[in-house]
């Protein structure tokens, strides 16, 4: 009884597999469409939501779906980067968003009509550029698992150290690609170091002789300054300090 069931099972599975038309569907296309749909829907939801934390939540979903697309394409390093930098970065953004805006619970952000028009124009311009680029591609192929023998991060790492170990594309002179990315890598790392030192300088505990921005705001507005005004100016000082 047991063994006959066990023997029947693979046959049954195979029969179902041949009968169901799903077998002709490109499985990668399904996953691709799934990830792409989630990414697009969540991106729209970011725009439509009016709560800053919900926005961040949708943004994280959208970015994570994009990471899924990268993994689907076999670009594991880029996918992990997407998770680390964009999704993790949104996390920090969220923390600051909550800390700076959550005086009252669930503060709603209302977008003005002018902002909507402006954002729409910028978005439409970007869409036009992207569509033009997309339609310029000569031959589209269906999404498929990338045929990479050994998707390794080593070529990227070696290229960042100034050694190219991968084969140059056909038609490109070998000398043009052999130099690697050492110079840009060093420039970026020095830039980041400067940013770190700057952030530490701005955030250090210090006593100022110059009046604080809250006092400047108070003196410019006059004696009748509401607590709301003071809070707003200090918040803006915080934002500009954090953004640097």
């Amino acid at each position, binding site marked *: 009884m047991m063994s006959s069931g066990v023997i029947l099972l693979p046959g049954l599975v195979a029969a179902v597999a*041949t009968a169901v038309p799903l*077998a002709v569907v490109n499985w990668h296309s399904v996953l691709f469409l799934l990830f792409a749909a989630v990414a697009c829907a969540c991106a729209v939801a970011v725009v439509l939501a009016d709560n800053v934390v919900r926005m961040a939540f949708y943004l994280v979903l959208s970015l994570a779906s994009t990471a899924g697309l990268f993994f689907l394409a076999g670009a594991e390093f880029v996918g992990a980067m997407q*998770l680390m930098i964009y*999704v993790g970065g949104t*996390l920090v953004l969220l923390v600051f968003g909550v800390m700076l805006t959550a005086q009252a619970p669930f503060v709603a952000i209302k977008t003005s009509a002018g902002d909507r028009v402006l954002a729409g124009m910028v978005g439409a311009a970007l869409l036009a550029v992207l569509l033009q680029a997309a339609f310029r591609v000569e031959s589209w192929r269906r999404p498929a698992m990338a*045929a990479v023998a050994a998707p390794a991060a*080593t070529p990227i790492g070696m290229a960042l150290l100034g050694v190219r170990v991968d084969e140059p594309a056909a038609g490109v002179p070998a000398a043009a690609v052999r130099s690697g990315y050492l110079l840009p890598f060093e420039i970026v790392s020095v830039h980041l170091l400067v940013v770190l030192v700057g952030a530490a300088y701005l955030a250090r505990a210090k006593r100022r002789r110059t009046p604080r921005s809250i006092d400047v705001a108070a003196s410019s507005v006059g004696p009748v300054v509401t607590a709301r005004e003071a809070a707003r100016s200090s918040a803006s000082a915080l934002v500009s300090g954090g953004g640097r």
Partner: protein
Amino acid sequence: MADLLINQLINVVNKLIGRVGLSWLLRVPELPDWLAWSVTAVVTAVLILNVIAGGALVFIWAERKIAARIQDRLGPTRTGGRFGWLQSLADGIKLLAKEDLMPEGADGMLFKLAPYVSFCASFCAFIALPFAFDFVGQRLNVGVFFVVAVLGLEVFGVILAGYASASKWSLFGAMREAAQVVSYEVPLGMCVVVPVMLSGSMDLVTIAEKQSGWISNWYLFHDPFTFVIFWVYVTCAVASVNRAPFDLAEAESELVAGFHTEYSGLRWSFFFMAEYGSMFLVSALAALLFLGGWNGPIPLATLLGLSEGTGDTANYFVRLIGCGNLILKSTLGVLLMMWVRWTLPRLRIDQVMTTCLKYCTPIAAAMFAGAMLWQLAFPGGVVRGLSRPAGEIREGWLEGPGGISAGRGLFEAKPRVVPNGSETPVGQKVNPTVESPVIVKVGS
């Protein structure tokens, strides 16, 4: 003698498998692509879920017993016999039956989703975690990087929970946890980089394989710097999963219960499954990076004669031994965290930040530089005379006629064999004709 015995045993098991009619388990029939994918995905997901949920049951029981013993009590003694084995199960049933409450002013959607976000992050990290040479949900070329990146996302659920609960305690707890986790990711990343540097790969399987052989091949004993940085990793790992003495996010003396103050029932238990899953995960990562992964203190499989040519079943047994080895090491890591939790007092938030920024980060940076210089000066580690160099001893499942390279299709058909001392192969030619019926791995 031992070889003969083992071979007899293997023959018996092979016959047994053939008689019961389970031989199809070892030989997967030709399935269409989409079905093979789905079956593989479901099997892997269910196995990982069992590791997390079953692990949580065992660990919660162990935590109660250990806490009790450290505090000179007995802990659970009645449910399910003398040692209270079934206490976790009883707790689980109680949690299922509990009323599911949501605060009046809460953000309903986020409040309901937050536990699942935490759990998903913990679950996703397990996908890239190898349990034995090819007992891995998805072998990723950048496994370490992926696991660390996803592990950092678990805090997202905590922040959502803290914010959506509309409670001051929850929000305070969530903010503390966010600040803590974001800070501790820096030294944690530095610690993780050292084994990556020594092995020349971010692939967790490769890193563990490079430490095969005797205990002296473990990266923990590679040089003095790796020995120190392992303990920095332990500190940062405990902090990044929010365990005492770093559990400020749920400091009950100040914040009631922190971010999960308003949660009850099944949602609350999801947070705890995520927490215990993450504890297991960082312990397994420590085992893979520093403690040889599935390669034991002694090369058990090689000593037993389970090497080349002993066949599929032998290979499977060897992997099971390795899997048990890794789980044992990870469990020991979790038990260590419990011991620490019930022994040390909780730190203040400024002490937590000081530990991270003034101690862990500089020590990790210095040890990283030291390990780099050591590798330049004495390539190959510190105890070269005592053992064969890392990467030379194989546990027998990599090469050989009966090994994995023969290709059976049940697991990965073509592993990346890392020869002694050489780099990860780069610039290989694309070979699209090689296909296995069950594609477990993306593009490898």
